[in-house]
C-alpha cells in the first residue's frame, strides 16, 4: 500500500516558481529611512490626539466636531466577529496614529526632503509621473509630501489635491460630499478613519471633461507600528471621465502596522470613474478598508482591485447603482502567500431599474495562504430589468493553501437576469500535458495557465502596472526548470 508521501503529486516547476511570488519584497520595498520627523505622536489613540490632529491642520470647527463624534462611535463599537480570526490580533494601543514628515505638499520633487525623495525615486514614482501620468500625489506616513497635476487639466477646472489642502481651499465642495457615502458610524474601521484621517486625495472633474491619462497616488509607510488613514473622495461630474490609480508599499518589520482608508466615489449622470489599486503592503500590515461608490443615471464605476501584500486584507469595494442604466464593474485579484489572508470581493446593489453589473474575482493561494471571496449582489425591489454576472475563481497551488467563497445574493424583483459562477482549480498535470503536446515548453505552459487565469483582470491595469504585475509573476517562474 502506498504511503501518503508516495501518492502526493509533485509540484511542477511553475508552481514552485509562483510559490516565491514577492519573495524579493524586502530588497525592493521592505527598506526604511531614518526618521527625521517634524512630529511623531506617541502610540495610542486619545481624544487629545484627535484634537491635536485637527489643530495641526487648522481645520474648520465642523471637521473637528466630526472627528470627535467619530471617535465616540469607534470606541463604542465592537470589532467585527466575521472575516478573519486574525482581526483579534489588531492592537489599537500599539499604533502611532499621526506622523508628520514635512511641512506641506511640494509641487517640485526638489523641494521634498532628501530621504523621502530618495525613497520615492527608488519606488519609481517620479519616473512614472514623467512617463505616463496626468497628476501625482505622494503620501509618506500621515501626509502628502508631493502633489502635482498637469496644468492643462487645472485650466479645465479639474481639482486634484491632497485632502487636507482640498478642505482648506474648497471647503464647501468638500463638505457637500464628505461622509455622505460612508457615514462616520458605518463600521468600526470607518469610524477610526473618520476620527484620525490624514492625507488621501480629493478629485473633482467638471462636466464633460475627459482626463485621458491616469491620476496617481502612492502611499508609503516608513516607521514601525504606523497607522495610515487616508481619506479619498472622487467626484466625476456629468459626462466626465477619470482614471485614478493608487499603489502602496511599506518596510518589512516584525511588528504590525495598520492601514484603514475610506474612499467615496460619486459618478454623476453619464460619468465614468475607474479606480485601480495595486496593494502591495509588507506582510506585517493589517489592511482594513471601506470603499464605496454611487453611480447615477447612465454612469459607470469600475473598481480594479489587486491585492498582493499585507498580513490581512479585508476590503469589498462596492457600487450602488442609484440611477437608471447605471453600470458597476468590480475586477478583483488576490494573491495569498504564507501567513497571508486576503479577504476580498465586492458588493453591487442595483437600486434603479435597467442597471447592469459584473464582478470578476480571481485568487491565487500558495504556501498555506488563505484567500476568500466575500461578496454581495443585491437587486432591490424596483430595480426591474437589471442584469448581473458574478464570476469567482480560485487557484490553489498546494494542499496547504485555502480558498473560501462567501457569496450573498438577494433578489427583490422578478424581472432580472443574474448569474453566478465559481470554480476552484489547480495548475494540473492534464492542462500542462495538453499545452506541451502542442509544442509549448513546460515553463511556458505553466506561465500561460497562470497568466490566462488572471488575464481578464491584469489586462485592465494601466500598462506599466500590468507589466509590473506580469513581471512579478514571470520573475518567479523563470529559471525554475530542472
Amino acid at each position: 500500500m502506498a504511503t501518503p508521501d508516495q501518492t502526493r503529486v509533485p509540484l511542477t516547476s511553475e508552481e514552485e516558481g509562483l510559490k516565491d511570488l514577492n519573495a524579493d519584497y524586502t530588497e525592493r520595498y521592505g527598506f526604511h529611512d531614518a526618521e527625521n520627523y517634524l512630529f511623531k505622536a506617541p502610540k495610542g489613540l486619545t481624544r487629545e490626539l484627535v484634537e491635536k490632529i485637527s489643530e495641526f491642520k487648522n481645520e474648520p470647527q465642523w471637521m473637528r466636531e466630526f472627528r470627535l463624534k467619530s471617535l465616540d462611535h469607534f470606541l463604542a463599537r465592537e470589532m467585527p466577529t466575521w472575516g478573519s480570526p486574525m482581526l483579534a490580533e489588531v492592537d489599537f494601543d500599539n499604533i502611532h496614529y499621526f506622523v508628520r514628515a514635512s511641512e506641506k505638499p511640494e509641487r517640485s520633487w526638489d523641494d521634498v526632503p532628501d530621504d523621502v525623495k530618495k525613497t520615492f525615486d527608488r519606488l519609481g514614482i517620479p519616473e512614472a509621473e514623467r512617463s505616463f501620468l496626468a497628476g501625482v500625489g505622494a503620501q509618506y506616513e500621515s501626509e502628502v509630501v508631493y502633489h502635482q497635476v498637469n496644468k492643462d487639466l487645472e485650466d479645465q477646472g479639474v481639482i486634484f489635491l491632497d485632502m487636507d489642502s482640498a478642505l482648506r481651499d474648497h471647503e464647501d465642495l468638500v463638505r457637500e460630499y464628505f461622509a455622505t457615502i460612508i457615514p462616520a458610524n458605518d463600521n468600526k474601521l470607518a469610524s477610526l478613519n473618520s476620527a484620525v484621517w490624514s492625507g488621501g486625495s480629493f478629485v473633482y472633474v467638471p462636466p464633460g471633461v475627459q482626463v485621458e491619462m491616469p491620476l496617481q497616488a502612492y502611499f508609503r509607510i516608513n516607521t514601525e507600528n504606523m497607522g495610515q488613514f487616508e481619506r479619498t473622495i472622487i467626484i466625476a461630474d456629468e459626462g466626465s471621465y477619470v482614471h485614478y490609480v493608487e499603489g502602496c508599499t511599506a518596510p518589512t518589520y516584525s511588528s504590525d502596522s495598520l492601514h484603514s482608508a475610506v474612499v467615496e466615489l460619486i459618478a454623476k449622470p453619464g460619468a465614468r470613474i475607474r479606480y485601480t489599486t495595486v496593494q502591495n503592503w509588507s506582510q506585517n500590515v493589517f489592511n482594513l478598508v471601506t470603499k464605496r461608490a454611487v453611480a447615477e443615471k447612465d454612469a459607470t464605476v469600475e473598481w480594479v482591485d489587486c491585492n498582493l501584500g499585507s498580513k490581512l486584507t479585508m476590503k469589498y469595494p462596492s457600487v450602488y447603482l442609484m440611477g437608471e442604466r447605471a453600470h458597476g464593474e468590480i475586477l478583483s485579484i488576490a494573491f495569498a502567500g504564507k501567513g497571508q489572508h486576503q479577504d476580498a470581493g465586492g458588493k453591487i446593489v442595483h437600486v434603479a431599474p435597467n442597471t447592469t453589473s459584473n464582478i470578476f474575482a480571481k485568487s491565487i493561494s500558495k504556501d498555506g495562504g488563505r484567500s476568500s471571496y466575500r461578496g454581495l449582489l443585491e437587486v432591490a425591489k424596483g430595480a426591474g430589468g437589471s442584469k448581473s454576472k458574478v464570476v469567482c475563481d480560485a487557484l490553489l497551488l498546494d494542499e496547504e493553501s485555502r480558498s473560501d467563497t462567501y457569496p450573498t445574493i438577494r433578489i427583490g424583483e422578478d424581472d432580472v437576469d443574474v448569474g453566478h459562477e465559481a470554480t476552484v482549480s489547480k495548475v494540473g498535470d492534464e492542462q500542462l500535458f495538453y499545452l506541451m503536446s502542442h509544442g509549448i515548453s513546460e515553463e511556458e505552459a505553466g506561465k500561460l495557465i497562470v497568466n490566462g487565469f488572471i488575464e481578464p483582470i491584469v489586462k485592465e491595469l494601466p500598462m506599466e502596472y500590468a507589466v509590473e504585475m506580469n513581471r512579478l509573476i514571470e520573475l518567479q517562474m523563470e529559471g525554475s526548470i530542472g
Partner: protein
Amino acid sequence: MTSLLEVCAVDELQPGSCRIVEWDGDQIGVFNCDGEILAMEDRCSHDGAPLAEGVLDPDSCTIECPRHGAIFDLRTGIPTTLPAYIPVDTFPVVVEDGLIKIEVD
C-alpha cells in the same frame, strides 16, 4: 380606508423629542422638529435599527440612524446618505383639539 391614531397632547411633545406609537405590528416615530410635527416609520430600511433612537437634526429636519449613520429626511422618509437607499413610510399628521394624531391605513 384611513383612520386617525391618537399619539399624545401637543404640549407633551416638546421640540427635539419623539414619541413612539404602535400600529399593526410596526412602530411609528412621531417627532417634533423645531415646532413641525412629523411621523415616520421607526425602522431603518438598511438594517432594521430603531430610527427614533438616533440623532434628530432640527435644522435639516433629519434623523440619523444610530446603527450605521444613514440619514433620513423626516418629511419624505427618503434616505439622504448611504448605506440606506430605500425610503421608509411617512404618515400625515393632524393636530386637532390639542391632540396630535396620525393618519394610518
